[in-house]
C-alpha cells in the first residue's frame, strides 16, 4: 500500500486518526488504503469475537469499510474516527445477529457446526479449542445488544464510556445491558462443567472486578 504520500505527514503510520479522517473526507489517494491498514485488524477482531463464526467475517468487514467510506463525510469530529469505525462495526454486527436469529428459527444450529475449525487460531491446543467452542455456544444465550456490549467491554477491553459510545446508548443504559449480560453469562459459565474450571478456585465470580 504505497499510495500514501498524499496524506498529511506523508507516512500513514505517523498520521493521526484525525488526519486520516480528513484525508478520507477529501478523497485523497491512499487514504482508503491507509484506513484499511489501520483499522482492519480492529474490525476483523471485533467481528470475529462477537459473532464467533468465521463464515461471513470477511464479507462483513468489507461491509464495514464500504459504509465507512460512504459515510465518513458526515463525521463531524475527525478525532473520533476510531469511535466512528467501532459504531459502524457494531451496527453491522447487530444486523448480522438479527439475520442469524431469523435463520436459526428456520435452521437450528446452522452457525456453529464448524466454528472450531475456522474461527480459532490453528495453534490453539485441542482442549482450549473445545473451551472456546463452548464459550461461543453459551454466548448465544445473550441477545444481540448484550452480546455486543459484553464483547466490547470484556474482550475488546473498552471502558464503560467507550462501550456506550460504540453502542450509541447512554452510560446508564450500557450499565444495565452489561449487568444483565454479565449475570447471565456468569450463570451459564458456572453451570458448564468445563468452563466453570476457569473461575478461580472456589471463588465467586461476581467477586472478580475490573480494576
Amino acid at each position: 500500500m504505497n499510495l500514501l504520500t498524499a496524506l498529511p505527514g506523508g507516512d500513514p503510520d505517523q498520521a493521526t486518526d484525525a488526519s486520516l479522517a480528513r484525508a478520507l473526507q477529501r478523497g485523497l489517494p491512499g487514504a482508503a488504503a491507509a484506513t484499511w491498514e489501520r483499522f482492519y485488524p480492529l474490525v476483523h477482531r471485533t467481528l470475529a469475537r462477537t459473532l464467533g463464526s468465521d463464515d461471513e467475517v470477511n464479507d462483513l468487514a468489507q461491509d464495514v469499510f464500504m459504509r465507512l467510506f460512504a459515510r465518513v463525510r458526515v463525521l463531524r469530529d475527525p478525532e473520533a474516527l476510531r469511535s466512528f469505525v467501532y459504531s459502524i462495526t457494531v451496527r453491522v454486527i447487530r444486523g448480522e445477529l438479527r439475520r442469524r436469529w431469523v435463520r436459526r428459527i428456520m435452521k437450528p444450529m446452522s452457525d456453529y457446526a464448524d466454528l472450531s475449525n475456522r474461527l480459532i487460531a490453528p495453534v490453539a491446543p485441542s482442549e482450549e479449542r473445545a473451551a472456546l467452542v463452548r464459550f461461543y455456544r453459551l454466548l448465544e444465550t445473550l441477545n444481540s445488544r448484550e452480546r455486543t456490549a459484553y464483547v466490547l467491554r470484556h474482550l475488546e477491553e473498552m471502558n464503560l464510556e467507550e462501550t456506550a459510545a460504540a453502542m450509541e446508548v447512554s452510560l446508564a443504559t450500557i450499565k444495565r445491558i452489561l449487568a444483565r449480560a454479565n449475570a447471565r453469562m456468569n450463570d451459564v459459565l458456572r453451570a458448564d462443567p468445563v468452563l466453570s474450571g476457569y473461575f478461580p478456585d472456589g471463588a465467586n465470580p461476581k467477586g472478580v472486578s475490573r480494576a
Partner: protein
Amino acid sequence: MHSDERSQKPDPESTPPDALINLVRTHVGRVTQAQSRRGWQLLQERSLSRKPQRRWLVGLALVPALAALFLWMRTPASPALGFRITSGQWDAGQLRAPSATPASMAFSDGTEFRLAPGTHGVLGEVDAHGAVFDLKQGHMDLNVTRRSGARWAVDAGPFKISVIGTRFSVDWQEKSGRLKVALHKGEVHVSGPPIAGVVKLAVGQQLQVDVAEREVRIAQIADDTKIPDVAPDVVPDLG
C-alpha cells in the same frame, strides 16, 4: 430480605474469569498481514452489491407474520452487474483518471464509462439493473446498453441525470457550478436546481446549467453558439 435483594441484583462490573477471557483474546480474531492484504484486494475488486446469500430459501418457508423481518435482510432479487476497471486508479469505490490519461470501467451488460484526464467520481450502488456514479469533478462519456428494466444514473453536484439506455457525456465543474450534458443517442432526464422538475433531452441536444447564475439552456451539440435561452419543456426555477 434487603440483603438477599442486593445479592440478586446484577453487578455491572462483575466479569467473567480472566483466564477464559484471555483464552478468547489469545486465539480468536487474529489477523495476519496476508489476510489483511487479501481483504483489501477483495474490497477493491468487490462489486458493491453483496453476493446472493440464499436467503430466499428462508423466505420461502416463512409465514407472513415474519415477512417484516425480511425487510432488514434486503435480499437481492438477482445478482448485481459485475464490473471491471479497464484503466485509471481505483480506490475503494472511487475511480480517478490521472491528469494526463483517461480512466474507464466496463460493466457486465456492456455499459462503459470513460473519464477524461483529471476526472474523478465514486461508484455508488450497483444492482442488477444498473449503477449510480457520483461524478465529483470533470468530464465523462457513457455508453449505456439499452435493456428492459435498466436503471442508471449520474449524480453531478446537485444534479441527477437519469439514464434510459443511451450514449451521452456529462461535464461537471464543481468550483464554478457548471453542468453540461450532451446527448448523442437515446434519452436522459436531468433534475436538480435551478431546474424545476425534469429536463428531457433529445438526441443531439446539449443542456447547460449555471448554478450561480441560475441559468438553464439547451443547445444543439453541433452548434453551441446559437442556442435558445430555455427549451420549451424546461421551466427554470428562478425564484
